[in-house]
């Protein structure tokens, strides 16, 4: 894989090794926790493409995530036996359709209007999912069986918690490497140029709207992928995940971890989830009060995020 200096790849290898070893050494609860961090991290990464690299704040990621989840649910409930690859396919297609829809309507809009529109879109999907009880299970969501890992016709091995974790890790790692490749490609450079100075990029001759649309589609696809993984791990889909609060949390991961770094948001997700876990031991349901305060303090005093200091290096 081209690019990046030695210390970066060493760091990468170390983190990867730790994540591979994790399920073998951690107790059940923390193993699940790590897997969840990876999934939310993927979601946050997908959002970083828009917020960090293209400069478009989106509150719509809950829609992509949720539809990936429900798409997978659809595959797992309608096709017997439950097929992993079909779940992935349905989920990604559902997310892609929503992303195309959102992309078409909103890339013409400036910053704050785009943000509000994506928010509104995710709420529209929330209401539809919440109220269309016959199809989506409404408030209660859908439950289904976990598919097995395998190729239909050849073999099928049910997931164990450990192998599921490795599967998720593999998907997330490959996604990360793909996204990294994309952000460092000419396409990615144009996105960053749009973030820095949109009028100038347009003046140079780039079809800014088209680039934005592709960015939204890309972002939506990977967010949907995260949704599929979540569905597979937890075996249920619920409308709560389409509520705009999830989008808000994703943006929080991005900011806490450092926008425009791809790994920053993953760190942000980990940080937030750990804080939440820690605080809920002391404050039970009110953990969001101290977490929220920490978030506000970070926005004021450390806006570049945890990893933002290394933004240059992480993108080289």
């Amino acid at each position, binding site marked *: 894989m081209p690019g990046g200096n030695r210390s970066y790849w060493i760091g990468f290898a170390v983190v990867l090794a730790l994540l591979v070893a994790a399920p073998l050494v951690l107790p059940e609860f923390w193993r699940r926790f790590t897997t969840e961090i990876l999934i939310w991290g993927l979601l946050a990464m997908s959002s970083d493409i828009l*917020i960090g690299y293209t400069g478009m*704040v989106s509150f719509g990621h809950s829609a992509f995530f949720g539809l990936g989840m429900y798409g997978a649910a659809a595959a797992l409930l309608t096709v017997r036996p439950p097929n992993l690859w079909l779940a992935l396919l349905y989920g990604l297609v559902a997310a892609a359709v929503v992303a195309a829809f959102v992309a078409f*309507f909103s890339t013409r*809009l400036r*910053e*704050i*209007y785009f*943000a*509000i*529109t994506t*928010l*509104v*879109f995710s*709420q*529209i999907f929330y*209401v*539809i999912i*919440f*109220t269309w009880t016959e199809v989506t299970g409404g408030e209660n969501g859908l439950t289904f069986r976990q598919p097995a890992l395998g190729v239909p016709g050849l073999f099928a091995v049910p997931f164990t918690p450990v192998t599921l974790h490795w599967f998720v890790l593999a998907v997330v790692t490959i996604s990360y490497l793909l996204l990294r490749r994309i952000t460092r490609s000419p396409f990615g450079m144009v996105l960053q140029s749009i973030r820095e100075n949109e009028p100038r990029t347009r003046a140079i001759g780039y079809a800014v709207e088209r680039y934005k649309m592709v960015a939204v589609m890309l972002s939506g696809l990977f967010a949907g992928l995260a949704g599929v993984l979540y569905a597979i791990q937890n075996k249920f889909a619920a409308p709560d995940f389409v509520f*705009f609060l999830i989008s*808000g949390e994703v*943006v*929080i991961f991005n*900011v806490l971890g450092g926008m425009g770094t791809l790994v920053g948001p993953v760190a942000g997700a980990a940080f937030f989830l750990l804080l939440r876990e820690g605080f809920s031991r002391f404050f039970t*349901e*009110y953990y*969001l*009060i101290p*977490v*929220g*305060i920490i*978030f*506000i303090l970070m*926005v*004021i005093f450390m*806006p570049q995020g945890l990893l933002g200091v290394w933004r240059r290096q992480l993108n080289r």
Partner: protein
Amino acid sequence: MDAFLIQTLNGIVNGMILALVASGLTLIFGIMDVVNFAHGELFMLGAYAGVVWLAITGNFWAALLAAAVTIGGLSAVLQVVALRPLLGRDPLYTILGTFGISLVLQNYALWQFGPVPRKLTEPMTGHFRLFYLEYPYYRLAMALLSAAIIGALWAFLKYGKYGIWIRATTQDRVMAAAMGIPVPVVHTVVFAIGAAMAAASGVLFGPLVGVNHVMGADWTLKAFVVVVVGGMGNLGGSILASIFISLLEAYASLVVSPAQAVIVAFVALILTLLLRPTGLFVPTPK
């Protein structure tokens, strides 16, 4: 037909409350470019403050005033502590800042008041006769009072001494400062006024539903829709848009469930952004 008329009235009444909420939001956005994600939470805290003050004073109107003042004061402190440091930067950060505030406020309310909704008793019961229909007095009072408050705001901005300072700062904050107007103070005061208006709406609306910690989120979203459809920073436009959207929603809920009727507002937003982005009720597109 009855239902249609009742819904028209409901639409207008809800529209006035929404107008009160949205005016505060638009005022804040117009002067300091802050999209206040926490606005709905100020509405919610206002309702709770109303419950508390009602218990203390026994008088609904006194509680309304006290709630508006308390929440206004609290918001001034909030603005100075959490928002002032963010004002020079990328607008993303004020969005994030107010989003963070909304999380904290919502959960604070949950912590202080618990998950069980509180009752805010209305100050007047009884219905009056409109043609052959019966309609609650209180709802009429809500609409009238909202209109009065908005009217008072408009008069204050146009004729009041500090109204000039606020309007000047909204148009050109750099030049206002160069004229000796203490812009940071004006920002804080306007934020407090916007918050007080949201709080008042919360108290007025409170008796219609149970007061709980999530009642605000919906209003934030709808207020955003109104501000966009009415034209960013355009006070008159937001009022028209509020009534328009609330009427649409009221009529829609004759056909679908109220939870789904909300989509109507969202569709209005999207259509506006596509067709007439400066706002449906703005006289001339700039």
